[in-house]
């Protein structure tokens, strides 16, 4: 049965009036408003009519907190470096409530906790995903789960480690992507990779960056020859979700595995940038010592690269496999690409306010992310994720503080604004609970 009578549907096809409501005059009015739009940060708070009442109340309550709180709210730039400890995270006070109800952003954070290096093939990392969102007008961790859940196109996808053995007695642990709705999280919290047997190799991967299509990872191959000698090789790659979802075999040489080249992202414009860096291509573990091979292996396409974090922004770094590294150190050197990453790799990579202001407010900050809504800022310290309200200026009164695990770092940060906030609040808890 048709949801409604086809005749009614036909009569509703056109708008309610003969005359279009979206008139030229309305359009011109919108264009005139666009001419007057300035970045939110540059508009003094007092000039914003709708914040006048809120800011008056906030100042009053802020003074109360200052008198009664007994803690320094505004960090002093004169403090000696050793005394610039993290400004103690404060519980949300009445001041924050005014701003909290205006937050219309949600944040999906992916975290990786590294086990201390020095373990042989047993080195592993643990991953978790948090959803921070306004619930009943309070900013909270609305969902948390192990593994990485990422938004991709119209759905959420799960990144999970898949382990398999090789006939020679080696093992392969690779990251796979699968539609979250169709999969249950089956991977253990922490995959321990068994040392390879003689003549075999073990492969493992560590996630470095999770975007909305591209994922950067470090791949480690430990090969054991028949005489007991061990070759430990590391590479960096960027792969996209379709490549991670495929069943491509991992036994092929590293360069032959499906991956995304910088040339795929930037086209031919990558060549001049790569000529400035002159990176050397990676070789398979058994070839890494052959100097003759190295001399001819200049990377002109940007085969091996990663996305790394600098305070407030993601940058592309090209890997060059030139020198023999000390045992346990990566074989590659990373060099920053002198090109900004496009939005298809890192959407919304703007930091407002700037890093200087963030550091002034929170000296222990090591990184920060800001919402496209310009209503909340995530500040990362060594031990915490702290969310501060932002209304033209950073308000030093945290809305939420989340404790990080030991050696934990942010590898994914995706913002949702209307209308996706409610969708994420509805879907993510269910998916993370699986």
């Amino acid at each position: 049965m048709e949801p409604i009578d086809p005749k009614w549907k036909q009569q509703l096809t056109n708008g309610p009036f003969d005359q279009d409501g979206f008139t030229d005059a309305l359009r011109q009015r919108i264009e005139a408003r666009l001419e007057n739009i300035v970045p939110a940060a540059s508009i003094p708070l007092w000039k914003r009519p709708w914040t006048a009442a809120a800011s008056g109340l906030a100042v009053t309550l802020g003074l109360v907190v200052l008198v009664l709180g007994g803690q320094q709210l505004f960090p002093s730039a004169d403090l000696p470096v050793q005394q610039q400890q993290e400004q103690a995270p404060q519980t949300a006070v009445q001041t924050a409530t005014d701003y909290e109800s205006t937050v219309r952003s949600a944040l999906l954070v992916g975290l990786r906790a590294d086990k201390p290096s020095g373990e042989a093939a047993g080195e592993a990392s643990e991953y978790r995903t948090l959803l921070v969102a306004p619930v009943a007008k309070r900013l909270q961790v609305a969902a948390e789960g192990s593994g990485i859940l990422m938004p991709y196109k119209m759905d959420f996808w799960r990144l999970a480690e898949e382990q398999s053995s090789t006939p020679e007695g080696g093992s392969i642990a690779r990251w796979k992507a699968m539609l979250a709705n169709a999969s249950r999280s089956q991977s253990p919290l922490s995959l321990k990779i068994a040392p390879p047997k003689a003549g075999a190799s073990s492969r493992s991967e560590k996630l470095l960056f999770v975007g909305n299509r591209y994922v950067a990872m470090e791949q480690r191959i430990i090969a054991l020859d028949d005489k007991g000698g061990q070759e430990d090789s590391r590479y960096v790659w960027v792969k996209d979700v379709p490549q991670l979802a495929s069943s491509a075999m991992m036994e092929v040489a590293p360069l032959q595995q499906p991956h995304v080249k910088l040339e795929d992202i930037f086209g031919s414009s990558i060549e001049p940038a790569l000529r400035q860096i002159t990176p050397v291509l990676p070789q398979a573990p058994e070839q890494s010592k052959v100097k003759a091979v190295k001399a001819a292996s200049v990377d002109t396409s940007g085969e091996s690269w990663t996305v790394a974090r600098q305070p407030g922004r993601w940058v592309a770094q090209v890997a060059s496999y030139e020198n023999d590294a000390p045992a346990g150190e990566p074989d590659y050197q990373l060099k920053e690409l002198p090109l900004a990453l496009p939005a298809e790799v890192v959407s919304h990579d703007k930091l407002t306010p700037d890093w200087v202001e963030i550091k002034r407010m929170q000296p222990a900050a090591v990184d920060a992310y800001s919402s496209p809504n310009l209503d909340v800022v995530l500040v990362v310290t060594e031990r915490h994720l702290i969310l501060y309200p932002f209304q033209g200026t950073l308000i030093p009164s945290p809305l939420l503080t989340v404790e990080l695990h030991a050696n934990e770092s942010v590898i994914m940060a995706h913002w949702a604004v209307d209308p996706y906030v409610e969708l994420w609040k509805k879907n993510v808890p269910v998916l993370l609970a699986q």
Partner: protein
Amino acid sequence: MDSEVNFDYLKYLSDSTDKKEILNELMTAYGKDVWNYAYSITRKWDQADDITQEVFIKVYRNLYTFRSESSVKTWLLAITRNMTLDYRKSAFLRKVTLVDAFSAREEQAAASSAEREVLERMTLNEVWDLVLKLPVKYREVLILFAHHQLSMKEIANVLGVSEGTVKSRLFHARGKISRLKESLDHGTDRP
């Protein structure tokens, strides 16, 4: 749809993109959809104008957040709906009024309000008349389906409900329209 294909590049915007040009194209393609939806919820021409303006301002500020998780149209209509819900709260009305306080809009509005009142009484056809009389939760689902021609899934995304709820509301909307039509045919005013 051709208009959807044209906006596929929204997924790949960079800092060098001319946002104003993109917004102009979006207004050309979807200005009417946004306004019609805003009007169908508020049933006020001036309010539909205000909401449409704020929707495109918001879109301009958030162009980079379009993730292609939905069609551009669905994205815009969802923003329109949320903006309309905000509009119902007095704070939004105060904000819009204050921001436009120094524009020439008030002068224009005074001159054209009489004309608009006349237009508001002259809806296109009987079905629109009936639909605009429905309670808003039935009205909007009917209009998203029949006028904006969204799928059940897309309507569910815009409204933030399940597809089952969409189907249920369409079913009830159909019943209410029938009863309204009957009551008007018989000269009664029963909803």
